[in-house]
């Protein structure tokens, strides 16, 4: 196990000690609990999260409206929102498995929302965007230093909204409105209905619906988050947590001292870091090949590669 897991100071398996959060959380409630704690402690004044239409209807002033989402009426469509209370945070808990351009709010969070210390949660590519924005702030005046806590989530690939629609309503034959939770784990895409029904799709089915832009991504475990988390490697209901930066280390230590999480050593849990490492290597190897193949995509002509 090496570079595929990124730099980190510590790694544990953890879950929230807040039962209410665990009821709504995807896995161990790490992001929701950390942001909630950071709000209480004044580490952040607010956070950019992926909420849903239910939240956006209640708080349209906190939600990003765009040309394709003026009415907020699509179930399971993530809506980038700036949340400033623990209750808001809880309403946005859980993974939505489709695109949420959270970084689009990063400047506005420091402007009309008036935040001095911003939290943001995002995929590995969004963490890359955040760090590029801090080092090369082309259009982000006075934003970089305001990013007080960036939480990364493990990500194999993402889906356009219509892909999720297709998977849930066509392949899984369930109404989007009737879905309680979606999950990717144990080699399957799981759809849980509100009435208790469960449908599982093999990942073989989901591959062709993946967002193409994900196939050049060389980061599985959000190497550039202050703290990164995801279900892989930990038992059900728990999350694997990498504490990466100095900021992450300090926030995590405070949260632990305050009893926000219970933890187990990552070496003691099954399936453990080996699985994380295996999946990370699979993603990186596959996508490196995709990047390489771009060079000879045409006849004597290739596609652009962003990496220098």
């Amino acid at each position: 196990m090496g570079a595929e897991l990124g730099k980190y100071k510590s790694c544990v398996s953890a879950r929230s000690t807040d039962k209410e959060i665990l009821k709504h959380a995807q896995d161990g409630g790490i992001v929701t609990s950390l942001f909630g704690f950071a709000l209480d402690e004044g580490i952040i004044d607010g956070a950019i999260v992926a909420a849903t239409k239910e939240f956006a209807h209640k708080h349209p002033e906190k939600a990003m409206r765009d040309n394709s989402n003026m009415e907020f009426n699509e179930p399971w469509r993530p809506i980038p929102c700036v949340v400033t209370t623990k209750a808001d945070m809880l309403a946005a808990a859980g993974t939505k498995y489709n695109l949420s351009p959270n970084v689009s709010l990063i400047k506005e969070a420091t402007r009309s929302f008036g935040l001095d210390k911003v939290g943001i949660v995002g995929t590995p590519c969004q963490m890359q965007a955040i760090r590029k924005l801090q080092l090369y702030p082309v259009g982000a005046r006075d934003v970089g230093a305001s990013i007080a806590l960036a939480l990364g989530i493990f990500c194999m690939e993402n889906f356009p909204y219509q892909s999720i629609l297709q998977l849930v309503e066509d392949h899984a034959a369930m109404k989007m409105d009737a879905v309680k939770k979606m999950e990717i784990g144990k080699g399957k895409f799981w759809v849980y209905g509100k009435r208790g029904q469960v449908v599982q799709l093999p990942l073989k089915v989901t591959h062709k619906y993946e967002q193409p832009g994900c196939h050049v991504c060389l980061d599985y475990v959000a190497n550039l988050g202050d703290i990164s988390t995801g279900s892989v490697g930990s038992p059900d209901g728990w999350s694997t947590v990498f504490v990466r930066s100095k900021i992450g280390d300090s926030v995590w230590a405070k949260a632990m001292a305050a009893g926000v999480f219970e933890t187990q050593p990552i070496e003691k849990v099954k399936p453990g870091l080996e699985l994380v490492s295996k999946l990370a290597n699979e993603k990186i190897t596959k996508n490196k090949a995709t990047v390489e193949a771009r060079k000879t995509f045409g006849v004597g002509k290739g596609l652009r590669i962003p990496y220098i």
Partner: protein
Amino acid sequence: MADKITLGYTHLSGCTGCTVALADNYAGLLTLLDRYVDLKYMPTLADARHVQKVDVSFIEGSVCINDKLAVQELKETREKSTIVVALGACACYGNITRFCRGGQQNQPAHEAFLPVNELIKIDVFIPGCAPTPQLIRNVAVMAYLLLKGTKDQKDLATAYLKPLMALPVQGTACGASTACFCDLMTNVIDQGLCMGCGSCASACPVNAITHEYGKPQGERDLCIKCGACYNQCPRSWYSFDVVDNYEAINEAIMAALQ
């Protein structure tokens, strides 16, 4: 101080927003001037205004090709500087001055404006309208390290500046070094590289970018051709060598200005 680098600032057809952005480093600017940079000439912030021999010169604004004096100052800047930096979107890409049709008092015949690298060789771009104080600061510190630093510092500065040095030579989607939303469309979205992070919409100074189901869509009539969306995008250009070490680099820059 003997090992300061010398800096000049040539002000062509720009609105002084880039100057203000430089000044908006506040105490950081004073530290830069105290320790690292000897400001030789600059309209607005220095007594000397005429182009002199310097290590690094910043150029603000595009160049009006109907203005002999401006063209002459531009050429002289190139001849007298080791490194020439195009500061801000007008100098880099033309930006809002692309839309000028002349007719303004007191020089109604001054109507045609070009980004400066169409007339002289530019070494580094600092895009943005206005460029951010932090990017100007970062480039200034890196330029100092490149010219005066230890070997490690020179390597770091080279890696950091590399993408900004590639911009003047790589051209843009619409040709003739005109930046616009087209760059994002042509080189990122149409190339299957966009993953919907949202950086572009956040970077746009005129809110011309919205999202259609997570993917950027540009309102091209609003676009002022500044290039911020493309250059902020992590899929336009991205250096793992630099960005993976964001923490150490940010700390080094802050320490340099303490």
